[in-house]
C-alpha cells in the first residue's frame, strides 16, 4: 500500500477518498428511505430485505475503490470462499443461518470497515 492509501490502521487519506466515504455513507443512509418507500407501497419484508441486500451490495461494488489493494483482492477472495460471492453474504446465506427478513434489512443498512472510515452507523 502506498502513501495515498495509508496504513491499514489509518486508512486512505486523500481528499477524493474522504469525499468517497461521505458519498458511500450517504448512499447507505438512503437505504432507510428505500425501505420506507417500499413499505408505503405495501411490499413484504422479504421483498424489502432482498432489495436492500442487493442494493447494499451494489453500493459496495460502486465504492470498491475506497478499499485499497491488495486489501480488496484478499477480502474478495475470502468472501468468495465463505459466501460464494465476493461482495459478501446474500439474503439466502443469511436465511440459511436463521436470520429473519428484519435482521437482513437491518444488516443492509449498516456500514462496515471502521478503520477505513466507512462505519458510521453500526
Amino acid at each position, binding site marked *: 500500500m502506498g502513501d495515498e492509501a495509508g496504513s*491499514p490502521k489509518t*486508512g486512505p487519506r486523500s481528499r477524493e477518498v474522504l469525499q468517497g466515504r461521505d458519498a458511500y455513507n450517504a448512499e447507505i443512509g438512503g437505504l432507510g428511505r428505500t425501505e420506507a418507500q417500499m413499505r408505503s407501497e405495501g411490499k413484504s419484508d422479504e421483498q424489502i430485505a432482498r432489495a436492500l*441486500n442487493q442494493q*447494499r*451490495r451494489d*453500493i*459496495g461494488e460502486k*465504492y470498491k475503490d*475506497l*478499499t485499497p489493494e491488495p*486489501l480488496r483482492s*484478499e*477480502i474478495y477472495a*475470502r*468472501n468468495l*470462499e*465463505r*459466501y*460464494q460471492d465476493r*461482495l*459478501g*453474504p446474500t439474503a*439466502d*446465506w*443469511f*436465511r*440459511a*443461518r*436463521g436470520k*429473519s427478513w428484519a435482521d*437482513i434489512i437491518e*444488516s*443492509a443498512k*449498516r*456500514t*462496515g*470497515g*471502521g*478503520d*477505513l472510515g*466507512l*462505519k458510521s452507523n453500526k
Partner: protein
Amino acid sequence: MRVISHDIYAEVGEFDPATGNLTTFYRDSAPNAGQPLRGLYQSLGDTPVVFYRDAGQLRLRVGDLVLPADEALSLQWQLVDATETDLDQHVAEDGAAELTITAPDTRPVVVRYSSGPPRIPLALDPTPGVEYDHWDFGLFIKNILEKNGGASLFVEDAPG
C-alpha cells in the same frame, strides 16, 4: 439429513444423526441437493461440530457427544492468549477461542480453536453484513441460542 459447511460455501454434507457420520460433497454434485437444510457443521480445532435439528429438536454434536440445544445448554466463549480482544480488530492468527459447553449430567466440554477472519480484521473489511461470528462457528452457535433459542433455525425450507 442435509447439512452445510459454515465456513466453506462450496461444501455440503449428508449427516446421520444416529451414528454421527458426516459425508461431505461439493455443493454442485451433492446427492441431497433437493432436501431441506437441517444443520450446519464445521470443525473447531480438531473437534467436529454439527448444529442441527432432528425431530423438531435442535441438537449440538461435539465430537461424539450429542446434546439438546435447549435452555439447559450453556455456552461460554472467550478469546485466550490473544493480544487483541476487540473483535473488530482480532484476526485468526492471534491466539484462539475457547468454547466451554455445559449441559446437565455431562462433564463440561472445552474446545479451543482458531477464531476470526484471517489476516485482515473486520475493521478493515467493508463487506456489507459481515459479522465476527461468520468467522467463528462456536460464537455463531452461542449467539443464535442466546438470541431466540434458535427457534427459526432449520425449521423451514430455507435456502441452503
